[in-house]
């Protein structure tokens, strides 16, 4: 039954993504209205607190608020640093980690509403036969540090400086102010409130303008570039900082064919070229979202695995790979039905 409904891991993941999109955007109708009734207020995915119908809050908003209101303001008041200042932040991180421990970075690849939207647009782009752009091995490294800058500057530093009174209140939660998920998810509830820019405050206007430009760019770029915003998302950085502390992980064994076919790297929506040539800890890259595509598209038995502790949840398999390739190319291009296409390509027989 399950195999009929979800013949591939990709199909199963898509179903999970759709369900989680509904939960993260409209979930208050299911889980409850007040904050106390949310799944969590420290979810490792961009479930926006500004969406009045959501089912959970993203961890980045309490992190910014606690640095701003608790740590920064308390330091100013007490003129010293005390444990009490960081206790709420500690509990937020503890709550975050309780979720993260179970699903690790799969929150990016399976749960995040903005990730799902980008992926759905990408699928549409493949259906429309639009060109697919990829970051090659040389330039992908230039993009990767951006997510860390977003974490350090927008999630940690500016809220703290605002609490200390160094920067204006408009910079109290700067990441939320530029977050494209805030706009996308509130638009999905039929509200244009977050799309409108606040006038009369130059900083708020500028941050809002950046957010709107980012969501506009993301929505169009996603037709041609897989997961464009995920590459610079601070949630990816936040999750990457903890990724070695969860039992859920990607495992790749050394294999003599590795680095030759490169199909797993083509399948990776984050353009992690290392997956094709590295093994062990280096193969589980900081940009990995645990989407599992590399596992699906690896043609060799057991070389790449998704594991939770000692349990192997899914592993590469030649027969599965052949079946998968019948419907879709590694980079996501859909194949025409078997009856209307010529003989299988070389890639299919790799």
């Amino acid at each position, binding site marked *: 039954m399950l195999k009929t409904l979800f013949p591939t891991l990709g199909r199963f993941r898509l179903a999970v993504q759709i369900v989680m999109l509904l939960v993260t955007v*409209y979930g208050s109708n299911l889980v*409850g*209205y*007040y*904050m*106390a009734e949310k799944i969590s*207020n420290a979810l490792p995915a961009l479930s926006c*607190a*500004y969406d*009045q*119908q959501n089912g959970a809050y993203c961890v980045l908003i309490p992190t910014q608020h606690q640095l701003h*209101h608790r740590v920064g*303001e*308390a330091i*100013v*008041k007490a003129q010293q640093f005390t444990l009490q200042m960081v206790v*709420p932040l500690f509990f937020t991180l503890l709550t975050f980690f309780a979720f993260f421990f179970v699903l690790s970075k799969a929150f990016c690849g399976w749960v995040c509403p903005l990730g799902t939207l980008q992926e759905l647009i990408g699928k549409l*782009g*493949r259906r429309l*036969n*639009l*060109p*697919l*752009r990829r970051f090659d091995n040389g330039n992908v490294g230039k993009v990767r540090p951006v997510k860390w800058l977003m974490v350090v500057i927008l999630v940690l530093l500016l809220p703290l400086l605002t609490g200390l009174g160094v920067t*204006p*209140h*408009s910079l*109290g939660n700067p990441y939320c102010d530029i977050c494209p998920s805030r*706009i*996308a998810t509130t*638009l*999905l*509830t*039929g*509200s*244009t*409130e977050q*799309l*409108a*820019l*606040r*006038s*009369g405050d130059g900083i*708020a206007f500028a941050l*809002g*303008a950046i957010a*709107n*430009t*980012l*969501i*506009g*760019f*993301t*929505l*169009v*770029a996603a*037709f*041609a570039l897989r997961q*464009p915003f995920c590459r610079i998302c601070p949630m990816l950085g936040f999750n990457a900082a903890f990724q070695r502390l969860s039992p859920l992980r990607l495992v790749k064994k050394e294999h003599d064919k590795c680095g030759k076919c490169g199909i797993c790297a083509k399948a990776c929506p984050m353009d992690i070229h290392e997956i094709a040539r590295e093994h062990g800890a280096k193969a589980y890259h900081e940009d990995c979202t645990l989407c599992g595509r590399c596992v699906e598209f690896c043609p060799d038995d057991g070389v790449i695995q998704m594991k939770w502790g000692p349990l192997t949840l899914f592993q590469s398999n030649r027969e599965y790979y052949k079946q998968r390739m019948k419907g879709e190319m590694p*980079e996501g291009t859909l194949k025409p039905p078997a009856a209307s296409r010529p003989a299988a390509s070389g890639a299919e027989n790799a």
Partner: protein
Amino acid sequence: MRSIVNIAATALLALLPLSGWAAERPAMTPGMEHEHRNHDGKEGAGPPGGESRQGMRASREWTRYPLILPVMAPRGERGGNTLDLRNIAADVLDVYAPDGSPEQLRRQVPTIAGGTRVEPVSSKNGNYYWVTAREANEERVSVASTATFFSNPGAAPTALLLQAKHDLEIVPQPLPREHGSYRESEKWKFLLRYQGKPLAGKKLMLETEFGSRIAFTSDADGIATVLFPYDFKAEEPGKGGGHHGGPRRAKFVLAVEHEDGSKHYLTAFNYSYSPDAERGKNLWAGLGFGAFGMLLATPLLRRKKSNGEKSSQ
């Protein structure tokens, strides 16, 4: 026009729009009486929870109903909210917690002139506390009530709100959640209750510090649907916005009166409301920057077959 933009923006994402609390412009509806008065004695505004300015003496000018008003805490002060009484004399505040032991669920805090500090009973028993003040004699019972918010995770206030606390009550259904507020042009429901039973066909008065006076009538289930008036005045020069640069807040009070034999009951609920979602915001600018972002990305859609770029074909 607004609805067209709404639809267009939502259709942009090509997914079903589910309406939230869709804002509507105030309109006169049957059973709704509207009177607008101007007052010039307004001071700053703030929500229950600690953002109001101290010495909000203007309250006596905009309403005669009993109020429990928040007093602004010094910057960085956490852990308690200071509340002050207006138009009512009470020796104690009754403070109801959303969760905890029986002693914690209801406490009495002696009132202090200039502001009574209310603290949560623990750091883990919920965000919303319900606070009331009662003044009574043989002929008349007056109750002021409000909700006050603490940054405490814990129980939702659903049971707290439904719990009977006084003879005559106004029960928000629901309270605005964190990151939300009552707002101009929005409809919110309130349950009117007498001795634990819904009061049907009862008049509920709304008064705002900007001078609006509107009457609403409860339905057969005792629910009065309150449409917050579009009455915010232009910001005074030199005055900032609301809390930490957020939206401005203004005070309102809802009041219901009821006669039972020779006794007259008056109960009021006061809280804060915010400007309409569109006030101080520019949707066209937002759309413009969104379109600008889209424009920046369009070169990616051009079909080129040169070095380093791959086509899906």
